[in-house]
């Protein structure tokens, strides 16, 4: 399924960069650039999820939100720099699904998007990743090749998930560590090496050799 995310944000830089981030995470995006009659534009685009700023040039986000709610139940995430409780309360009363304050962590924003999408449109994501005959199962936390499988720890699973997602490209150690931190696994450089070593050991036990390649001074790649 191609998930369409609509960005309603008046700052052009944020709009563009947010699109880049989301597209980098395999979402389709569109953005409102003309702020007259936003609700009508939303109706035409009919997105799966909406990121909505509160302070906008013409109608404010709250008005737009209640407008959208009259025809669509797509999840709406309020993204705003006003972090008063009144705003938060308002956004929830008017049918917003989440409230994120600027400057947000993209990791948290992406997690929020993913969980809202999962709730609103269940069973759209495959929970299995496969690359070169090796498949990773996220539910059971196992990795499988040629009928043999082995269990991974939480850290190892996350590392493998990241490598699978970026299969074919080089993942730098810094990126990997940051990704783990975003998932609340506070792994340092040494621990990363230890974890990679352990994964390799486990892989070799099920007969997979040289699956994770080390690129000297750059990082890892599948």
């Amino acid at each position, binding site marked *: 399924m191609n998930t369409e995310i609509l960005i309603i944000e008046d700052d052009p*830089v944020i709009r563009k960069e947010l699109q880049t981030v989301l597209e980098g995470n395999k979402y389709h995006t569109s953005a409102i650039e003309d702020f007259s009659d936003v609700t009508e534009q939303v109706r035409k685009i009919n997105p799966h999820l909406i990121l909505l700023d509160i302070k906008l040039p013409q109608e404010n986000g709250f008005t737009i939100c209640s407008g959208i709610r009259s025809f669509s139940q797509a999840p709406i995430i309020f993204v705003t720099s*006003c972090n008063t409780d009144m705003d938060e309360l308002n956004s929830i009363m008017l049918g917003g699904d989440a409230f994120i304050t*600027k400057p947000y962590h*993209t990791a948290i924003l992406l997690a929020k998007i993913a969980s809202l999408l999962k709730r609103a449109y269940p069973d759209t994501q495959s929970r299995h990743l496969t690359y070169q005959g090796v498949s990773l199962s996220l539910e059971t936390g196992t990795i499988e090749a040629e009928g043999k499988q082995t269990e991974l720890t939480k850290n190892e699973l996350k590392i493998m998930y990241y490598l699978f997602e970026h299969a074919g490209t080089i993942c730098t150690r*810094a990126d990997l560590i940051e990704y783990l931190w975003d998932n609340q696994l506070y792994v340092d450089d040494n621990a990363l090496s230890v974890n990679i070593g352990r994964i390799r050991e486990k892989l070799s036990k099920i007969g997979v050799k040289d699956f994770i390649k080390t690129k000297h001074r750059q990082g890892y790649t599948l």
Partner: protein
Amino acid sequence: MNGKQYWKDKIPLFLINIVCMVLLSVFLLFVGNNADSIAVILIIWTMLLAGVLTFTYHQRKRRLNKLVKMAEGLEEKYLLSEMLPEPEHAEEQVYFQLLKMASKSMLEQIGTVARERQEYREYIEQWIHEIKTPITAMKLLCENHKEPFTREMMRELEKTNRFTEQALYYARSEYTEKDYSVQEIRLFDVVHQAIADNKYLLLQNQVALETEESELTVYSDDKWLRFILDQLIVNAVKYSREHPVLHFYTKVQGDQIFLFVEDHGIGICANDLPRIFEKGFTGKNGRIRQNATGIGLYLCKRLCDKLGIGIAAQSGETGTTMILSFQINHFIHQVQG
């Protein structure tokens, strides 16, 4: 009212009375009265005078004492002139008018200052919200172009954001009544958020993080708590030694939940420890590291007080432990259970 002063005030009256007595006595003697009858008149005169003066003294004293007591009982004493009963004496009336004038002008002044403060605070809040847009834009730009250079930029942006948050909470800490919402929050959710706020700072200082995950929940405001934890994390990094370690763990004791933030830093010397929550206090560590402002912990303490969270510090050779304590609300648990 001072008795001595009262009688002193009456000296002219006495003098006039004495003069009058002398004149009357001379006159009465000349018209042929004997000394005895004059003496009777003078004694009665003196007694009447003394009686009236003593009576008025007590009456006035009672009245004034009542006013003093009223003023003492008043919380905002500058509003006293509104409470005073209408004066009876001519002189009192003038003073009363003066008092009214003075307090009216002061109330106007206070009103102006309060209004200006309010406006300034609103401006600050608005400014902070506006500055967050470019911060967000810069953050996104950096995230979309990840390289060592932008990672350092990110650390600086975290810092920028932290300072703006500090200003925001400083402004808010004075008018907090309306700006927090208490709800059930999982302590470690907030810890993770605070860590995420300082991700680049922690990563670049190679801080080893240990989080002893627990499912404990408390009733508090997550935004405020996150801000407090941010300050504690920054301090831990600022006053760290080689191979910094930051350890988060919780403990339940009696009807309190404790959250410990432990570092292996340079510690706080015993003399400074009791004063770290004072505004502007930087202590020995501040002099060593140069960039202490004495605001962070002061704000933490203030916000904690408002939220009803206990905050304490333990420090020694091996580092500092900051302890936040939350009261377990049995009532809420009973209602929910």
